[in-house]
């Protein structure tokens, strides 16, 4: 049963990942990503990481993807990417380099762990369940956990600074015409 589930989900994850990259329409890309997140969540369940699976669905598939869709809708769906390459041979070179890196990483992980040992490690650690994660967060990782609060403050200020329109009096009109600013909030 587990094995079949794995294979079904593996194919789903790969196809949805490819579909996400290949889709011309940004909304389709986003939906493919949701499917991909669900497939990953199933993997986490299979590996005994139930908390991670729940977080994956609630945070990624839920909150983050909804934000993505909001942004896409606000920016307009119709935008097509320019088809021409700004740098010659960029795409084949990128494919080659990306493929080489991916192949290398797969080779390294495959040869040094083997699939069996990965699963064994994941199962043996108690971090898979909510209790283990909670304990780790508030004991051995207390300080990094608190530092994330600083990170969130910085992110919040950043959004406010970027998103807020400023009074007209500021800054001499430099090269960029003010009307060309993209987005700018609802």
């Amino acid at each position, binding site marked *: 049963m587990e094995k079949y589930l794995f294979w079904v989900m593996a194919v789903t994850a790969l196809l949805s990942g490819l579909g996400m990259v290949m889709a011309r329409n940004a909304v389709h890309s986003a939906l493919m990503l949701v499917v991909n997140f669900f497939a990953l969540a199933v993997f986490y369940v299979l590996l005994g990481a139930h908390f991670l699976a729940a977080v994956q669905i609630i945070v990624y598939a839920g909150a983050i993807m909804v934000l993505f869709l909001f942004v896409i809708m606000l920016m307009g769906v119709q935008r097509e990417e320019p088809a021409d390459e700004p740098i010659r041979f960029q795409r084949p070179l990128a494919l080659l380099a990306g493929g080489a890196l991916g192949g290398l990483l797969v080779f390294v992980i495959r040869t*040094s762990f083997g699939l069996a040992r990965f699963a064994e490690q994941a199962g043996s650690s108690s971090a898979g369940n909510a209790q283990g994660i909670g304990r780790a967060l508030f004991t051995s990782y207390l300080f990094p956990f608190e530092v994330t609060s600083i990170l969130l403050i910085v992110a919040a200020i950043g959004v406010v600074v970027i998103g807020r329109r400023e009074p007209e009096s500021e800054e001499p009109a430099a090269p960029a015409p*003010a009307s060309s600013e993209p987005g700018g909030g609802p």
Partner: protein
Amino acid sequence: MPITQTPEVAWRAIAPALALAGGGVIALLVIAARPKIHRAALAALSLAAIGAASWSTFDLCALRYRVVMQGSVAVDGVSLFANLILLVTAAMTVLLSYHYLERRRIHRAEYYPLLLFATCGMVLLAAANDLILVFLAIEVLSLALYVLAGMARRDAGSQEAALKYLLLGAFSTAIFLYGIALSFGATGTTNLGRTAVKVASGGVDARLTSAAMALLAIGFGFKVSVVPFHMWTPDVYQGAPTSVTGFMAAGTKAAGFAALLRVFLVSFGALQWSWRPVLWGLAAATMVVGSILAIAQSDVKRMLAYSSIAHAGFVLVGVVAGGREGLSASLFYLLAYAVMVLGAFGAVIVSAPDGRERLSFGEWAGLGQRHPVFAGAMTLFLLSLAGIPPTAGFMGKFFVFSAAVQAGETPLVVVGVLASVVAAFFYLRLIVLMWLTEPAGEAQELGASPAPALALALAAAATLAFGVYPQAIMDLARAASVFTG
């Protein structure tokens, strides 16, 4: 269910970071409560927070070096010395910023809290003894810097800088995270000290650690702009507001190198044979490429950006040299570079009035005759960047190169010396323009006001003092070249 013990919090050890973050939060609250507050008050508040952080850093120096906060924070010579560099950088940046921002009419009160949070991230990065904290600290400082780089909302160059830095920074962070994951997979821990024990015991897979180290090196290499991960540097340094550029150049480099030194010398110290040749190649490429590309520039900020790439290479020479000598030389170099690059960018800031700067080389022609003191200070910074005695830059290069020679890396030193000769060319070109050409056009005033002038004077004094009497600082750096972990 067992009752977990409350984790111990070493307040004194994290006090510098707390002071900076607390200052940032207070500044934010002040802005929220009094939106019309004079921004000079915020600048003063920032200076007070930096002062508090400096005081708590000095307070820490008396303590025994140790690892605190469940192993995530290291209080040791390297983190304290890095704090010194970072806090000096932050204070000078505040001094340079206020008038610059007002003149360019970047009326953003959030600038100061963001600057404090960025400094806080840098302080944490320099002290991080756990890869998770390294990652979080990098994110804190980067997020703040992305926004700071885009502070000039009406300037397309600034917007471009922010976007480029954000996108490329996101990729580098992803690669760095992958490196952390592989390192965790190989050793079963993210703690740098425990990683070191595990690696030294030999029970780890060499392929996995090699891949992890490569990915971590890419992440660090991006942050400190090492060739070939330097592509963002010229555009971002040129586009960002100049006060932010100086802060980025001095601060990010110091914090990034402190973390790089800690990760590679402590955690993967036993695997020197595998990463040393790679860093050797990166150092050589960085020095050569940075110096050669700088020649072709006609914009002062862009030239300084390429020079900052080259300088990352010189610091890497110290890392490759390794050992206590190499470590102390790198630390000295980072401090020397911080003062001279802040001076150089500060000179660009005060070079012209009315929210303008002298950006193209041509505008610097004949400045020596019209404003000899100012041109003299800029000349001093440029000589120091070029590595000509008696300046801080010369002593920095001297220490780094002699450490490398002692470590048997003479070929790398030869490459470094050749790169410095090439680099001297474009610094001297600007100096010649200032002193030996006739001024073109009508006389232009400078945009000097007391605070930036004070910052420039301090930077010039430090540049000269470190060059004439480097022993005091070098002794400090040598005493600070101790990791705990």
